[in-house]
């Protein structure tokens, strides 16, 4: 069949493009591609204003089209897009990770300014830089140093930064919410209305029913009333009313997500970000 010869031709061409290169050829290819890339960017810069929105729209649409078609048009017999997905995922992740420095640039600007102008608390900003470079350098040295002693101590230092600082700092920050939740319960959880009463009562039953406390508090209830025991009440609340309500909210969110997805995908979304003259 003709399609198969076409297919063969394509694969030969594709094979030529993706063939592994090494040494000087590789270096030349990389340098050349960089030049081509710079050229593409330069061309993009000079795209006239009226073509800019269509370009963004097309890229948005095509980016999503692959995933949409994979599911909607794919079948057991026809699944080239499914086979392409792992590569597609890799490409996305690699490109996305280049955005990493966006946040870092901002942080550097803020703290760099504080240090250079010696504003109040600039020492803290200095600590930011020290911590930033210390853990990053320790990480790279431990991975790339050739001398065993060097990489060994870097590894130990990295472990100290990681297990001695980063891990406890993040878990402590997170655990601090427990204090806030206690004081919030005390000051804000009031029976102001039917609504807040319902919320408060459900929360209280659950708090007791989820832990052994509830088990012992209402264990004296006789068998015919056993459904009133806190653990049974809270179990019923969770699988009964709570489940129905969570599902109702999920349905709303599901349709909402579909609508939002469509608007974005087809570039129908409006708002200052989308409406701005490019």
């Amino acid at each position: 069949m003709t399609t198969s010869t076409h297919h063969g031709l394509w694969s030969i061409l594709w094979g030529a493009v993706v063939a592994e290169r090494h040494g000087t050829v590789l270096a030349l290819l990389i340098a050349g591609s960089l030049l081509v890339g710079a050229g593409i960017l330069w061309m993009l810069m000079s795209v006239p204003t009226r073509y800019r929105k269509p370009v963004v729209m097309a890229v948005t649409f095509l980016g999503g089209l692959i995933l949409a078609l994979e599911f909607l048009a794919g079948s057991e017999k026809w699944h080239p897009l499914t086979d392409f997905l792992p590569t597609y995922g890799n490409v996305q992740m690699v490109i996305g990770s280049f955005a990493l420095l966006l946040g870092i640039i901002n942080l550097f600007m803020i703290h760099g300014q504080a240090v250079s102008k010696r504003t109040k608390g600039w020492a803290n900003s200095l600590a930011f830089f020290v911590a930033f470079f210390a853990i990053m350098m320790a990480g790279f040295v431990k991975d790339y140093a050739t001398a065993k002693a060097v990489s060994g101590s870097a590894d130990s230092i990295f472990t100290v930064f990681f297990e001695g600082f980063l891990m406890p700092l993040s878990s402590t920050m997170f655990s601090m919410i427990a204090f806030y939740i206690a004081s919030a319960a005390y000051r804000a959880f009031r029976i102001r209305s039917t609504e807040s009463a319902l919320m408060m009562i459900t929360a209280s039953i659950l708090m007791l029913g989820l832990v052994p406390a509830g088990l012992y508090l209402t264990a004296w209830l006789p068998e015919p009333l056993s459904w009133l025991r806190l653990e049974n009440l809270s179990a019923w609340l969770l699988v009964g009313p709570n489940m129905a309500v969570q599902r109702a909210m999920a349905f709303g969110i599901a349709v909402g997500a579909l609508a939002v997805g469509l608007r974005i995908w087809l570039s129908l979304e409006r708002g200052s970000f989308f409406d701005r003259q490019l």
Partner: protein
Amino acid sequence: MNILIKLQQIDRRVIYALVVVVLAVPLIFHPAGHPTLVTPEVHRAFEVIDQIPKDKMVILSSAWGPSTESENGPQTAVLMRHMFMKGIRFGIVSWDQAGSQVTYKIGTSLEKELHKQYGVDWVHFGFKLLNEAALRGIGTDLPTTMKNDKLGKLVSRLPVMNGIKDFHNIGAVVEISASGTLEGTMIYTTQPNGLSLLYCPTAVMSVEAYKYLDSGQVKGMLNSAVGAAQYETLIGMSDVTTQASITTWALSTAHIFIIVLILLGNLGYIASKKAARRQGGEASND
């Protein structure tokens, strides 16, 4: 009456300090062993794992880091222990870099205790980047998707992977998570391949998961450390004191404390409203 209103203005730092005391005391002095309560969703999780045939592997999909170790750590540990005891092979993949370290430690310490061998009874696939392709790959071609294990060895060469290729050889997938990763695993790993999914969330996320338990998209669930403690009861550890059982006892006192706070707060609220009404509708200090 007056004291109730005054209590309303109690410094929040006093409440913070009381929370610490209420939690610290049961951490030092606590009843031995486990509470007897076991909820149905934990029971079902136990049954799913318990009935997995020997020729299949369980995948622990672990999406948590050190900041939620006290919730997700006990869940990971008890599931690993059960599978070691039953001789069910399992592989754990971590979608969190720091979490990979923590789960590997849990595995190695249990392995020592139960005389099991890494690479033969279990494998840690290390940290992998969470994306659609990786989730899909678990079902379609596990060894190729994982490639190297935590120690950098080729996964397909490990004895534990004998006969494990794709979803036909996977008994269940367990999602141990501290963030919204459940749906991804559902969409790309378990449902297209008809695999059983168990869920080990942090308490915050457990409430939203009941809709999936109802639909069978999730087969069983261990809710936070409390769920892990219940699971420990099921595998015959009810007399042993563990991190999860201590947590459960400490939670009991803390929850009662918070309920007392809520009650006091509301009594004070009512009292101050009454007082305000008596003073002729002066605004209450709410």
